[in-house]
Structure formats: structure tokens, C-alpha cells
């Protein structure tokens, strides 16, 4: 039997990963101050526009999908009946 990877079985490691992720989030927010965002559209000039837009899009996507599921979901063998 080959050795298994169990790195994420340890909650401590998951926590570390999450911390690293949060630090990276803060870094990309700060980075915006040091680059010229020269967009074609005025919305791009709001500080953190992409971060906000990305977050809202994602939440919207999931919640609309949940509503959609109510309409389109059938049993797995729907077409076999």
C-alpha cells in the first residue's frame, strides 16, 4: 500500500491555509494603491471595484442558482420514465 497524503486531515493545516488566504486578500487590496488602474469605464476607478464586484457576483450566482434549482431539478431517472 502506497503512503497516503493526509496533510488536510490536520485542522491546524487547514487553519494555516485559510490564514494565508486572508493575508493574500489583504495584500491584493493594498496593491491597488500602487498601480494605475487606468480603466475605460468610470466604475473601475472606485477603489476595490474588482474585489466588490467579484464578491457580489459570486454570492449572486449561488443564490440565483439555488432559486433556479427549484424550477429545473428533477429526479436522476427523469428521462427514463
Amino acid at each position, binding site marked *: 500500500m502506497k503512503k497516503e497524503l493526509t496533510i488536510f486531515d490536520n485542522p491546524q493545516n487547514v487553519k494555516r491555509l485559510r490564514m494565508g488566504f486572508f493575508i493574500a486578500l489583504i495584500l491584493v487590496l493594498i496593491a491597488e494603491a500602487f498601480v494605475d488602474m487606468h480603466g475605460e469605464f468610470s466604475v473601475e476607478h472606485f477603489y476595490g471595484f474588482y474585489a466588490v464586484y467579484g464578491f457580489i457576483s459570486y454570492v449572486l450566482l449561488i443564490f440565483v*442558482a439555488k432559486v433556479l434549482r427549484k424550477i429545473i431539478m428533477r429526479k436522476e431517472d427523469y428521462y427514463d420514465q
Partner: protein
Amino acid sequence: MINNMLPPAFILILGAVLIPFIRGRAKSAYMLVLPVIVFITLMKLPVGNVWVIEFWGYEMILGRMDKLSLIFGYVFTIMAFLGVLFALKVKDDLQHVSGLVYVGSTLGVVLAGDFLSLYLFWEIMAVSSTFLIIASRTKESREAGFRYILVHLIGGLFLLAGIVLYVQKTGTLAFDYIGLSGIESYLIFIGIALNAAAIPLHAWLPDAYPNGTPTSTVFLSAFTTKSAVYLLIRTFPGADILLVIGGLMVALPIFYAVLENDIRRVLSYSLMNQVGFMLVGIGIGSQLALNGAVAHAFCHIIYKALLFMAAGSVLQMTGKIKCTEIGGLYKTMPLTCLFCMVGAASISAFPLFSGFVSKSMIISASAQDKFFLIWLVLQFASTGVVDHAGIKVPFFTFFGHDSGIRAKEPPLNMLLAMGTAAALCVGLGVFYQPLYHLLPFAVDYQPYTGAHVVGQLQLLMFGALAFTLLILSGYYVPEVRSRNLDADWTYRKLGRFVYKLLDRSLNSLNLFAEGVLIRFVKSGASFFSRAAIHMVMFCSVNIWLLLGYREKRLGLKKKRLYEDLNGGTLPIGIGAVVAVSFVLLMMVLTQAGYPLW
């Protein structure tokens, strides 16, 4: 120089026919060498029209060589090599032969400079890809393959009708930019758009592709849709309707991808989403946008194949592919997991991965021409890609809840294919200059500006933050075994209902029709397919005898071929339909030279 070279389509199609008669290592080597020969041929070809053949008073151009056809030729050939390498250990000649015939016919489509050879290769493509779908030899795959070929035959008829009218009008078979004006252009457009899985003609794709074998779906993912993208770039650049279709394709499939339980169906919807980006680029029509569409097709073919390879490896090693049944596979399949994550980063357009250098071109082009709404939709969809392909596929497959499955890594050839594709994804993301150099228009575009990188990183990472928060709080869409309704409902359920209704109301007529027509057609069709089967059997048996197969081995081979042919009666019958429609086209063409009145 051209005289001693075969057109790439012929190298693969004729080459594929020999595969069943070669054994062992020689067979593997032979299959891998074919795409290499094609690649060398493409590199040596001069610009312009080559292999021009006089045919019934018309010119057939088998090799239209320019920057646009060449870059698609290259990426399809690279893909063929990766696909063959991935499927190398498969003990099923049907898949190997139809796979290479499929690639060959796609190259035929891409290099065709006239409508006659285009249509011929178009139909070979439809038939050979059907064999790849039914290769799983399950009830579902047979039925899905049947629906697939019917839809594509109808699409082919639209294309054919458009071609006939086009030739009547212009008096030439050659084609280049067409543009949407006049009935013939719309018919041609519908025919091509169906192959691009353009909404609302898309349902065949998520219906059929998840039913292929672990290896055949990798082939399927690359060729049909992207050859249609190529044709749209050539014939309908700047068509406004593509902005609408592309916008819908970018936005709608991601909702389905969020809900879907079957990983390969998630990837199929994601494929539609990516083709949507390309269609938007074609719809914008500026040089930057068209370059973006081409570059995105190039990168997409490789990372999408990589994702389908990872999914195929999981399916082959565990026998399962549904989110609800797998999870925690990183423990014993770390390499597959790593390759899958490279594919996920590429499709999400993470900086330093291939999707970033191509997708940003299309988005920049939309901003440059001030398409604000389209730009917002594209950015929204970019976040959507992060969800389904960037996070959902790797997370629920390799992490998530531990399913307890401890499957081994796939065989070396599959790992090598994935490793090469992953290396290409990173390579294209870092060293993008060679790719830009191949694009149809001269490029003055810089993907790695501070604004691009920071904006994209914020978009992706705050999307991922939303995922983290939603899954920790339990608000994320739960994994459920389900079937989600899509446009194929119209012909799978509504169609059946209408049929029953007609059956009841028109019963007497129906009986009559069945008595006379159906029986007549049935016996005719079965005669032809029977004749075809026996002809193939006869030829093969003789060749096997020559090759020294005897007794038991010969019997076994005969039995398998017979079963394959019988099981695949359908595509053979359909081949007959294609042949008949082709003859009809020829008859119309010979008339086209004269005035109609």
C-alpha cells in the same frame, strides 16, 4: 514540394484505417507518430491555396493556408497528440480509429477553402464523433449518441441548404467572409452555430459529452465546437447577433454548472461558457477581439482537455464521477489532483496561467469598444468560472468530504498526457509571445500590466472568499443527485408527447404510413446497412488472414467486429443518408452552372 505531401486530413483518416492491423508497441508508436507527421506537414506548407483539385467543373481547395487556419491546425494537432497519448492503453480499436478520423476530418474542415470539401469533412466529423460517444457501449451512451447524430444531421442539412443557395447566388464554391445578409447566409450561420453549441442550439453538448468513455470525451471536448469557432471567425466576424448569443452562453451555463452533480457535465457547461467568450470576441469583431477569440480557443482547447483528462482519470480509477460519490481523492491521487488544479487555474484565468493571456484580450477588446454591458457580463462570468471549474471541480473531487475511496494514480501514459498539457498551460501563461506571434493580426497587446493583474486577482480571490464563507456557513448549493432540465427537454419529453398526440389523432394515417412507407424504408435501409457490414467483414477477414491470424483469434476478432458494426448500425445507416445528401448536392451543383429558368 507539395506533390510529395498528403493533406493532413488524409494522413489521419487513411492512417487511422491501418490501426486495427498493427499490434503491441508498434501500434502505440504508430498512433503517436501520425499527429507528428501532420505537424511537420503543417510547418512546411507555404501560404496560399494548396491541393487545388478540379472536380465536376468546380475547384476543391483542400489546403487554404493562412495565419488563421494554420494556428487552428497547430492546436488541433497538438491536441490530437495529447488525446492519443492519454488513450494509448485503451484496448478498443473502434475508439482509436474513430478518434483519429474525427481529428482528421476536423483538420479537413479547418483547411477547406471551398464549401464542397468543407461539407464532406463536416459530415465525417459528425459521424466519427458519434462513434466516440457510443464507445462506452451503455444504454445511455447509445441513446445520447442517437440524439447527438440526429441533431447534427439536421444542422448539416441547414448548412447544406445554405451552401446550395450560396453557390446558386455567387457561382463559386470558394468562401471566405460571408456576413449576415440574405437567406443563404442565415442557413449557413445556423449550421455552424449548432456545432458551436450556440444557445438555443446547445443541448446536444451537455447531453452527449458526459456519456463518452474516460478517454473519448477528451477528444470530443476539443474539436467540434472549436472548428465551428474557427469558421465563425472566418465567415461572420463582427456579426452583432454573436454578441447576444455569446453573452447568453457566457452567463447562463454557469448556473447549470453550479447545480450539476456529474463532474463531466459540469465541465460540459463550462465548455459552453468558454466558447461564449470566443463568440463575444467574434461578435465585437475588432482585430484585438478576433485575436483574443483565436488565442482563447488555443488555450482553452488545452486546459479544457486537461480538465477532462483529470475527470477521465478519476472515472477510470474509481468508476465514479459524481460529486455526491467522490471526494478526498488527493490522498492517493496527488499528481492527478495537481494537474487538475493547474487546469482549474488556467480556465479561471489566474495570472501566469494560459487563460489569463487570452481571456484578458477579449475583455480588453470589449472595454476598448465601450461595450459596457457585455464587459460587466464577462467579468461576472469570470467569477462564475472560478466557482464551477476553478473551485467546484477540484474541491469536490479531490478534497471536500472524504468518500473513503483510495484509488491509485492512473497509468503512466495518462499522467504524461496530463503533465504535458499542464506544462503547456503554464508555458503559455508565462511565455505568451510565441502564441501572440501566431495570431492572425499583428499584436500590440500587453497582458501583464499592473491594472490587469491586480484587477483580475481581486476578482478571482474575492470570489473565492465568497465561496469560503458560503461553504463554512452552509449556504453553498448542496450536492444533490439530480437531473437538471435543459433545452433537450423539448425533444426528449415534449417531442414524445407531441408524437403520442399525433399518433392518437392521426392514427389511421399513421397505420397506413407504417404499413407502406416505414416497411419499405426499413427493408431498404437494413439491406444497405447489412451489405455495408458484410463488405467490411469480408475485407477485414481477408486482411487478417494475410496477417496470419488463425482459428480462435480470428473468430474472436470477427465476433467483436460484427458486434461493433451491428451495435453501430445507426451511424452506418446515417453514413448512407450523408452519402445520399452529398450526391444531391452534387446534382444541384452541376445544375448551378446553368440559369435556372
